[in-house]
């Protein structure tokens, strides 16, 4: 249907935890240039899906392919190496390492990377994120919002094709949220693909070109935001909260 | 090999099992509630034994009372230690609480063990029996002390289980040890609760030490092996499960003794008895890194 390259494809993904089916036969394709908003009530399996699509969890059934290559079952660093980056719901930084070092780790983890070139790119991204002046601070000493930006920066160091952002707007100051939205848009213009999970409907609707809705482990809608918002099953899912 | 020998081994195994269970229950409680592995637990056991000995020697109390005194002394002593050393575990400023608990209890063990050598001397001491004499069943001889140890041990365990079912603090112990809920939700002062748990664990270890002293005598390093066995039991029985520890403790005691009975080379059998539990532990951890019944590792934060 679309000639855009397929970056990440999840096929028939099932993930169970004890008696709970967190992901129930989910199919999802993320194509180049997408800006997907992944939404759904609490407990609908969004974070689990991200974990599966980025290698942090192995699906019980189904496969994950990145650029047509099957990667499900391999550890997360393989996904990262293939251009799949993610942030975490609660920011997970290298707290007692400096901001700069946090950026250097993913940069230097790429094969054939040279230190000076990586450092240069790191400085560049830190400038882009307005964090350059904090380079020598320990990551744990940054404010919550700055930490979120740093996590984004860490993703960028992987030169990823697709970025999965898990609740980037959670608990974030409105002004910083604006900054985040702007950055995401700019990066998207530059050709990066995004999948953003959040409960902040307003922000999601502002940036998304495509909405995917999950409820109780299943994908119940996937398409243009306007259409999805009018979809009865979606309204029912949210109403049944 | 005769049935008699087997029977004796089995009986000994049961006694040892009860002792192991007492020690392991303490480790489990401390782990579930304070979220740290108490590397000094074996040395609390050792101190309990010595405490009872000196109470008998210098205060002339009968052995059973001495055991109770030892339990009380260790209960208080443990709480003091906990207040002194473990308070950083309750502050958010402390990082890597797991590691802190490991190193601090490790250091405590080192301190207690070496102090014991100086304070009590390196040579084994033997307190008087609880009830001197032996029981005979046909050809078999079982010392009274072993019977007393098993009986008292079982009584203490039963008392603990009753306590955990019927009293508020006991139920809180039970609840907090099984789930991640903090004591605050149960409506109890969290810090006092933790100290209490630590104290109970120590008291149980002290009882074990006092019970075992007339049978195996006291030495400053007597806690080293039981310590390791306690971890074996707790990991096999499930970190956080009191009843699991009890069952696993008894099972380990039995299996060790039966292993000794069946090991082909009698001269090596005894040495490898200790290795048996450890080997089982390693194998279990390799295949189930969270232990036999463990949930994902409980963390303080």
């Amino acid at each position, binding site marked *: 249907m679309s000639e855009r390259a397929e970056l990440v494809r999840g096929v028939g993904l099932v993930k169970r935890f004890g008696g709970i089916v967190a992901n129930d036969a989910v199919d999802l394709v993320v194509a180049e240039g997408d800006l997907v908003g992944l939404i759904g009530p609490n407990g609908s399996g969004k974070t689990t899906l991200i974990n599966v699509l980025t290698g942090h969890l192995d699906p019980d059934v189904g496969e994950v392919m990145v650029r047509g290559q099957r990667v499900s079952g391999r550890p*997360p660093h393989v996904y990262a190496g293939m251009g799949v980056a993610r942030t975490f719901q609660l920011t997970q930084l*290298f707290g007692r390492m400096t901001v700069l070092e946090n950026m250097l780790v993913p940069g230097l983890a790429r094969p054939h990377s040279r230190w000076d070139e990586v450092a240069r790119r790191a400085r560049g991204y830190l400038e882009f994120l307005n964090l350059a002046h904090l380079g020598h601070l320990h990551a744990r000493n940054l404010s919550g919002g700055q930490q979120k930006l740093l996590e984004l920066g860490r993703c960028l160091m992987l030169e990823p094709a697709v970025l999965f952002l898990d609740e980037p707007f959670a608990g974030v100051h409105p002004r910083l949220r604006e900054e985040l939205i702007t950055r995401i848009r700019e990066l998207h213009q530059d050709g990066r693909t995004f999948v953003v999970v959040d409960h902040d409907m307003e922000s999601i609707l502002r940036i998304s070109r495509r909405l995917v809705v999950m409820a109780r482990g299943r994908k119940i809608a996937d398409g243009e935001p306007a259409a999805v918002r009018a979809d009865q099953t979606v309204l029912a899912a949210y109403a049944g909260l | 090999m005769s049935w008699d020998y087997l029977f004796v081994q089995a009986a000994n195994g049961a006694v040892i099992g009860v002792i192991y269970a007492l020690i392991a229950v303490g480790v489990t409680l401390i782990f579930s509630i304070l979220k740290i592995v108490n590397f000094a637990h074996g040395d609390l056991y050792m101190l309990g034994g010595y405490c009872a000995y000196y109470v008998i020697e210098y205060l002339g109390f009968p052995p059973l009372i001495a055991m109770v005194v030892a339990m009380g002394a260790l209960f208080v002593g443990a709480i003091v230690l906990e207040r002194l050393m473990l308070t950083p575990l309750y502050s958010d400023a402390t990082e890597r609480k797991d590691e802190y608990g490991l190193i601090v209890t490790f250091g405590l063990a080192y*301190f207690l063990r070496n102090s014991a050598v100086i304070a009590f001397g390196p040579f084994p001491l033997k307190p008087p029996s609880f009830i001197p004499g032996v029981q005979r069943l046909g050809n078999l001889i079982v010392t009274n002390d072993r019977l007393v140890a098993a009986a008292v041990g079982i009584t203490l365990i039963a008392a603990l289980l009753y306590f955990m079912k019927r009293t508020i603090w006991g139920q809180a112990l039970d609840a907090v040890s099984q789930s991640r809920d903090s004591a605050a939700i149960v409506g109890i002062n969290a810090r006092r609760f933790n100290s209490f748990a630590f104290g109970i664990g120590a008291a149980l270890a002290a009882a074990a030490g006092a019970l075992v002293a007339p049978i195996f005598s006291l030495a400053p390093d007597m806690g080293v092996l039981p310590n390791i066995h306690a971890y074996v039991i707790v*990991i096999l029985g499930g970190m956080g499960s009191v009843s699991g520890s009890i069952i696993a403790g008894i099972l380990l005691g039995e299996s060790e003794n039966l292993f000794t009975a069946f090991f082909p080379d009698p001269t090596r059998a005894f040495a490898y008895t200790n290795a048996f539990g450890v080997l089982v532990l390693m194998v279990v951890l390799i295949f189930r*890194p969270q232990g036999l019944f463990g949930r994902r*590792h409980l963390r303080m934060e």
Partner: protein
Amino acid sequence: MRGLPVYVLLVVAALLLAGADRLNAYWLHVAIIAMYYGILAASWSLLAGYVGLFSLSHTAFASIGGYTSALLVKWLGIPVLLGMGAGVLMCCALGGGIGWVCLRMSGPYLAIFTLAFSEIVRIAISTEDDVTAGMAGLHTAPLFQSATRLPYFYAAFALLAVSLLGMGLMVRSRWGLFLRAIREDEQAASASGVAVARFRILAFAIASGFAGLAGGFYAHYIGIMTPGVGDLDEMAKLVVMTVIGGMERLPTAVGGAFVVEVLLEVLRRYGQWRLPLFGVLLLLTMRFARNGLLTPLWLQLVRLGESRVGPLAAARDVPQKDPAA
């Protein structure tokens, strides 16, 4: 000037070397043993301080290295250096194996597992005494035919220097960043492209290899190997030394080993009390100066060095471990 701490270390080292022949046999021995512990402390800090793997089997590896070397030399008649090399290889392999097996184990479980391994090794060595001579002690071939201990001093020095150089280079390279990232947040490290499993195994293999090197040297210096080399008391002593000095950096770890070993000797006249004393010192350090007692000194040195950094330094960005740790 940049790298001031390194220059200071070099000066201290040069002084030590120069003054060595002035020391009497007793102090030479103390210095040699201190350097033995120094290698153990540095390699353990690599594992526990940098990667965050609290292994209690480190001295067991020293024991394995020592026995392997001693036995191979005894049975096959190979030169001692070759035996020591074999000991190192054995420990690398076993250490890597342990690292692999422990991949999914978290903090306390890993500590308990390595403790269990250490006990099994000790029991096996003790019990199989027709092979290892058990508690009676295995006599080993000496590394040098020498009337004095001086060659051993220089050898220990060389080994320590090589070990620190090797580990130091590793720690200042990108690998050092990866190891620390693994300790900070394993999941985030993996998400950042760090092959966590590979590095955990590597760290175990390398650290254990160095422990085996120290053990091999020890075996052919002391002249007799006993199961006590790898027992829990030795491991506890190592933890005490490294944590008191500062387990998160190589120089403070080695410093801790030196200071504690020398103090233990100096305080010998106070008898057995020196051991519990260090236990208390450890507890106080953990409670009030968790980074280690030598760390502030080291950081001060680093700061002094950096205060005179000029504009040239910014050109090549080599991030150091942050002074504000």
